[in-house]
Structure formats: structure tokens, C-alpha cells
């Protein structure tokens, strides 16, 4: 198992995703002899997990079953331990395309946070790219570096514990793309520029507040970035369900048309009709952040 390569069977040391039901998943570090408590009972790693095929059904001690899934950056995003606010898949997907990430891309990112985006970047730039990620919080930097190792992507990433606004990314002239998710991105724009290849590249800044966007855009223009574009993407989840719609009763038809016999045999049906449709949740996340993209021209 690795976050950049599939394997078929669960091995000691893997990080597996245990699927317990709709929207209910946990990430489990697989260790010989270890046990994991789930709400369906105990999972014994040695017998229930190790050697099983990813995707198989496993029965917990209470007799209820779960599925064990191969980890992906998307499953990690919904199971990872939150140490910060994280980026979710909808924004991540947009960022990945708009930054033009692909195998071999060199990317700079700050802050690392809980590593949700970092895992997705690593998946996309493997096997020949590299991610330089900067996090100013020491424990977070250490923790995420540990996770990269466990997920077997540490060869693709360098974690630096420093303040990007003061000290930059620690590299110059190497990045194809830069991503900023920090409180004052406008202070890091010049560092972003310095980290990028002289031939140019793409930059993205994620900010929840419009005032941040305003300042960042000014800084980007001042630094000669082009093609500025700010967007917002929201996910709408449609719940598939069958709904039943009642029929109105307008009373019997006019006596001239009504045939006395028929009326007795088949009384008009007022049973509700079934309709297969979708409904939208009552509340949805209506805002995550604004995504500002720009192109750095050749310098």
C-alpha cells in the first residue's frame, strides 16, 4: 500500500480505510497483533485485516460487517485527524486542474495544515515530481512528516518548519506551481514568485474572506502575475430517494359520465404515487473559500 500506488492485499504497516456505512469511515494503521474498536465491535488486525484483499467484507466481533478499502487521498481527506481547518475534495480537484498539476510537477505549498491537500498533490505529481511544503507550527510539521512516511510518500516531499511570509519556501526557481493557504497570502506573494521557475507557472491562493482576496490580487498584480481569476466552487450532494405524492380527490365525476357499474367495481384510487427523485440536504456548506489563480509570466 502507498498513497501513490495501489496494491491488492492488506499488509502489516498499511493504512487501511474501514468503511462502516454511508459517510462513516475511519483510517486504521494496520499492525500485527493490534486491535481496533469500531462501533460494530473489535477488528483484530492479524486475522481480520492482514492478508485480506482490499475491498473485502470483514466481520467485526459484534457480527456486523465492514468493508476495508485501499487508502486514497480522497478517503484520507474524510478520515484524517483534523489539526486545522482542512481543504475538501471539491476545492482540491479544482486546485489540481487549475494549477495544471501532473506527474513530474514541482510544487510549493504553505501551510501544510493537516495535509489534506498535500496528499492529493503528491498523488498527482508522483513518481517524478516533488512537493516543498512549509508549515510554521512545529508540532503540525512533525506530525504531517510522520504521516507522509507512514503513507509511503515521504520520498516525494520536503516538509519545512518556517514562516513562509518571512522565510519563503526554502527553494528558488524550481516550482511549476505554488499554493497558498495562509492568513495573509499577500505577504507571501513575492516568495511565491521567487520559488517559481523563470519560465513561469501557476499560483493559487485560498482565502475565506473577500478582503484577503482583494489584497492578494493587488499583490499579485504588483508582482507582475497575469490572468488573475477568482472563483468559488461548491459541492451539491443529491440524495437519491423515492418520494410518495398524494393525489387530490375532486369527488366523483359528473353523473352523466359516470357509469354506475364501474364506479362500484373500481373506486377511484387515491393512493400516493411513487417518484424516484433526489433531494438536497436542508443545510449545506455554503462557503469554503475563494480560490484566486494567476499565471506567473517568464521573468
Amino acid at each position, binding site marked *: 500500500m502507498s498513497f501513490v500506488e495501489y496494491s491488492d492485499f492488506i499488509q502489516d504497516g498499511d493504512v487501511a480505510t474501514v468503511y462502516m456505512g454511508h459517510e462513516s469511515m475511519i483510517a486504521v494503521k494496520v499492525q500485527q497483533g493490534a486491535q481496533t474498536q469500531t462501533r460494530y465491535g473489535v477488528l483484530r488486525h492479524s486475522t481480520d485485516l492482514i*492478508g485480506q*484483499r482490499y475491498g473485502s467484507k470483514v466481520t467485526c466481533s459484534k457480527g456486523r460487517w465492514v468493508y476495508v478499502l485501499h487508502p486514497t487521498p*480522497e478517503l484520507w481527506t474524510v478520515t484524517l485527524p483534523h489539526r486545522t481547518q482542512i481543504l475538501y475534495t471539491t476545492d482540491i480537484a479544482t486546485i489540481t486542474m487549475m494549477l495544471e498539476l501532473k506527474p513530474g510537477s514541482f510544487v510549493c505549498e504553505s501551510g501544510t495544515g493537516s495535509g489534506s491537500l498535500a496528499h492529493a498533490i503528491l498523488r498527482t505529481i508522483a513518481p517524478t515530481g516533488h512537493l516543498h511544503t512549509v508549515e510554521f507550527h512545529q508540532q503540525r510539521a512533525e506530525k504531517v512528516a510522520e504521516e507522509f512516511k507512514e503513507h509511503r510518500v515521504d520520498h516525494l516531499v520536503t516538509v519545512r518548519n518556517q514562516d513562509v511570509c518571512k522565510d519563503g519556501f526554502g527553494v528558488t526557481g524550481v516550482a511549476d506551481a505554488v499554493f497558498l493557504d495562509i492568513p495573509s497570502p499577500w505577504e507571501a506573494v513575492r516568495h511565491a514568485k521567487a520559488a517559481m521557475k523563470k519560465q*513561469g507557472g501557476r499560483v493559487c491562493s485560498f482565502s475565506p474572506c473577500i478582503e484577503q482576496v482583494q489584497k492578494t490580487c493587488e499583490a499579485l498584480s504588483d508582482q507582475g502575475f497575469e490572468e488573475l481569476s*477568482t472563483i468559488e*466552487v461548491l459541492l451539491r*450532494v443529491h440524495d437519491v430517494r423515492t418520494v410518495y405524492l398524494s393525489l387530490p380527490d375532486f369527488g366523483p365525476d359528473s353523473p352523466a359520465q359516470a357509469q354506475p357499474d364501474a364506479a362500484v367495481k373500481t373506486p377511484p384510487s387515491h393512493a400516493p404515487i411513487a417518484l424516484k427523485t433526489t433531494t438536497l440536504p436542508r443545510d449545506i456548506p455554503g462557503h469554503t473559500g475563494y480560490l484566486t489563480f494567476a*499565471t506567473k509570466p517568464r521573468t
Partner: protein
Amino acid sequence: MADNVDDDSLYRIKEGDYVVLKRGDIFKAVQIQQKKKVAFEKQWFFLDNVVGQLYSTTFEIVSGGILQPRKPKDTESSTDAKGAGTDNRNIVDDGKSQKLTRDDIETLKEQGLKGQEIIQQLIENSSTFKNKTEYAQDKYIKKKKKKYENTVMILKPSCRILAMMYHGREPGKICHLRYDTLAQMLTLANIHAGSKVLVFETCAGLVLGSVMERMGGYGSVIQMYPGGGPVRAGVESFGFPSHFHDMLHEFPICHVNALLAGTLDTTAKDPSADSKQSNMAAKEEQNQPEAERQGSPEEQSMETNSGADGSHDPKKEEEEKRREAKAEERKVKQEEKRKKLAAAAALLESRNADGLVIASRFNPCPVLMGLLKFLSPSRPFVVYSQYKESLIECYTKLKEHGGTVNLKLTDTWLRHYQVLPNRTHPVLLMSGGGGYLLSGTTVAADHSKPSSSRQDGEPAEKRQKVTDTEG
């Protein structure tokens, strides 16, 4: 820049390159060919001059359709502030504010004035410009710039640019798949280097090309195609290096049933051409009568051959020879095709693909149910449809059928913003919808359980319990 000549060679435009022309938000994909007239935004020009220039250079279209690299200084608009009004109370729309007539502007253009100079003339001859607010002046200049500037930027193609181009120019060709929806697909399907991905699309090759870009030439992509042959115009536009095409395989969906049943015959039975040929022809006729016409002309030619045997007309003999040569050529082609089919079939037969991406004008449900069989357990799949109802059908069918988890029917809402000092707001026009996605993850099918890898002597009663809870 001179010290880094080697570095830049990768960034120079070469003849034969696939590039994207850009002006404002308008894109167009073209190939660089000498002496070829290119039409873009109601203008004609030649791309001869761009060869050897760097990508992302902006060119000015000068007389005769010749492109000249724009000098960097021209970029900045040189509008001297001559004062501005505070609001629009004194501005009356009487159609008389601009003193230049259309003819005047045309003459200016003919005199060879550049866009920037024409705009300057327009401003000087506008009686209301000075009274406009600073913001309105900005907007006026921007609008005129769009109209009179005759520049074009030449870009290296990418998934982002091509997806935006197709969505803007020819959304019908890509089933109205919006770029952010495509972005979701690539991520939800966990497309990455080294995996084996199945793609079924009728989006001109845009989806296939995007998947290939994300795989960077590592792994394999199998295009499952409907009809006579795979459509890949969009893939060309990506301008991939040739080794990318080594990972691309194709398999006609009309052979899927045969492959699943184990009756697909891709072996060359006999080195002698005849039997093989008839074999192929028969199969092709059987399976895709309207799509593959190769079988029938061959038969025709064989018939005429036997008819011609009696006479010894030299003309006819010559014709016969030509026919034979053609038949030989066809045979070679068919052999190649057979080999390709066999290679794709071998990749599919192991039924261990790592991902499935569907985006087509076909009813997605049968496509999905047919192709899911080729995936390993615990692998993602994603289906795009312009219509939500067709995905509701997929969802219902998958729930009945089992073998998948994490099913989600979604769409994305996308909004662009104008960000300017004191004038930040959402862009007035927004896309009404970008299509719908159904995504999920495969899991081991229940019935295949006993035959799976479980060999560690698990107690039988436990397995029994599993099946019990399923019921």
C-alpha cells in the same frame, strides 16, 4: 536569458506543435504549419513567424496576417489621468458623444494604427469620457481594448486550457461537461501515474486526453469505444510526446460481451492468411455490421478475382495486381488491428483495472454495469451525465446489484468574481450547470467470496454469519 539556452529549448514553439491561441477568454487549438492560414476571432493570419519563439508570447497581428512578438512595453496602457467625474448625473445617452464615425475608425485602422492608438483616438474624441467616473473610464478602456486589440497569445496546451476552450467554444461536442466537473472526475477517480484506467467517452477525446495527462505516460489507459473506431481529435490537441501513446489502448465495446464470456478470439489461428482473414471478416460482420466495413469489400474483391480468372486481359491483370497489393496492405493493417485488440483484451481479461471514467451521450447505466466488471475491488469510478435522471437510474441499479460503496450523486456550482479595488462582486453571468457526477468505490462481490484469497482457515460459521447478515 542567453545563458540558459538549453533550458528554454523545451519552451520554444516548433513546427508541427499543437498549440492554443488565446485572446482574452477565447481559446483555439491549432497545429503549427508553415504557410497555413489560421482564422481566429474574425481575423486571418499565418503562424510561420512563431516558430522558434517562446510559448506564452503575445503576438501582434500586422498587415498581411503576419505575427510579430509584442514588445513588453506595449502591455501597460498609457492613459494619463485627465480628471474624472464623480457620478453620471450629467451624462446623457444621445449617441453623439463619440465624434469619430465608423468610417473614421476604419481609416485609422487602414493607416496601420495599433489598437492602443485607436483607443487613444477614441478617448480624445469622446465628449463624455472626462466626465465619466474613474471606474467608468477603466471599464470604457477595457471594453474598447477588447474590441480593437489585435493580439494573440500562443500557449502550450493543457487540460485546464483545453477544457475551458471546449466548454467555451463547442460545449455540444463534450456533452456540456464543464471544466470544474472534469476536474472533479479526475480527482474522484484517483487518476495517477502507474494505474490502469478504463475510459468511455464521447467528448471528442478531451476526457481521455485529460486522463492521459494526469498519468504522465506511466501505466495504461484503455479507451472503450463505441462504433467503428475511437474518437481522439481532442487527444491530438494535447500535443503529448510520442511515448504517451504507448500507454494508450483501445477496445470496442461491441466485443465486451464476448470478452466477458471468454469467447472473444484474438489469436491468429493460422499463419496462412486466408483462414485468418475469413475469421476476422466473419467476426467483424457478426459483431459490428454497420461500423466495420472492411470485411465486405474484401469479399467483393475476392469474388471479382475469381471472375477475372477466366480472361487474360492485360489491363485486368494489372488491376488484379493492384488489388492484390491493396489486399495485402489491408491484411497487414488487419493484423495490426488484431494485435492491438489482443493486447487490450489481455489487459482487460485480468479484470483488475484501477479506475473507470465514463462521460458520454450514451445511457450511462448499461455502460457502467458492463464496465464495472473489469475493476478490482476497492477502486474508484466516476460517471458523468448531463442529465441527473440517468444517474439516478445508475444509483438505483448499483444499490440493487451490490458491489459498490460510497455512492454519491453530485454536481458543482461555480462562480467567478470580479476583483477590483472597491468594485469586487460576483461576475454577473454564471454557468447554470456543469452536469452531474455519480462516483463510488467498488468492493468485493459477495458471491465471489469463497473463491477469494481467504486461505487462512477461517471458521466456516463466521463466513456463514456474513451471508446471514447480508440477507
